[in-house]
């Protein structure tokens, strides 16, 4: 089976986020008042072949933990769903 994975990587609480802070400071200049706690992060999408959802979750989680995020500074959140029929490869 093929599963579509989305991994969101974000800085852990307490780690300074200069990108988020810069965006937050810029918003009032654009007329957006009252916006708080802006945090910048990254999102990754990929598809993974696995026998079942449990295996897909385990493999995608390992990818997130070992490569996509640096656990010293970042947390990751994994979302998984069965992929639609893709192009034959």
């Amino acid at each position, binding site marked *: 089976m093929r599963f579509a994975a989305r991994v969101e990587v974000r800085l852990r609480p307490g780690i300074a986020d200069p990108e988020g802070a810069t965006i937050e400071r810029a918003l009032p200049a654009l007329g957006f008042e009252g916006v708080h706690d802006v945090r910048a992060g990254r999102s990754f999408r990929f598809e993974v072949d696995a026998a079942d959802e449990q295996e897909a979750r385990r493999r995608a989680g390992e990818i997130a933990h070992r490569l996509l995020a640096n656990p010293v*500074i970042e947390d990751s959140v994994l979302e998984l769903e069965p992929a639609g029929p893709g192009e034959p490869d």
Partner: protein
Amino acid sequence: MAARIAVVVFPGTNCEHDVAAAVERAGAAASLTWHRDRDLGQADAVVLPGGFAHGDYLRPGALARFSPVMEAVAGFAAGGGPVVGICNGFQILTEAGLLPGALVKNRGLRFVCAPSRVRVDSERSAVTAGVAVGTVLSIPVNHFSGSYVCDARTLAALRDGDQVVLRYLENPNGSVDDIAGVANAAGNVVGLMPHPERAADALLGSTDGLVLLAALLAQAAGVRAA
């Protein structure tokens, strides 16, 4: 015979020739080692130079950590061999788990390329052994992700273990505790953001980098003799 320094080259590394020239000036023999090599040859010390290994894609050092040569580097480090990461090399060593903490984007998202003054705060490292604590060196920094971070427990352990090797006198990037360089618990693995190879000739404005490189060469000679 001169100490042999392996200078590791990843795709995107760009300081390897400067490092090789500087360590040769200090009296060593340098050899460039491609990241696909699984063997460090007869190296007495290893340097991971600066640049943009694997394009710095994902995070600086995140992909370089998986290059084949890194297993050999980890093995060399585990055996007590001196391993030094400069700038991008420091980032690679943290990503590889050979040094604690991480390096994140500079405070204010500001790229910094300037001379920096750093103070030697520990002699327990491969680049500061024999260099008096308190010695101030002028060595340039050149980075976007040079802000050192770690959790409070790690920072306490670094201080207790005398592992903070270099501190900035004027913090250029927001590093916690003004940290410019750290060592592992044994002291043989060191990472620093300043570039000693760029302070290795009076024409460059400073020769202070040679102080650290000379200490490294002395450590390497010790490995050879052991």
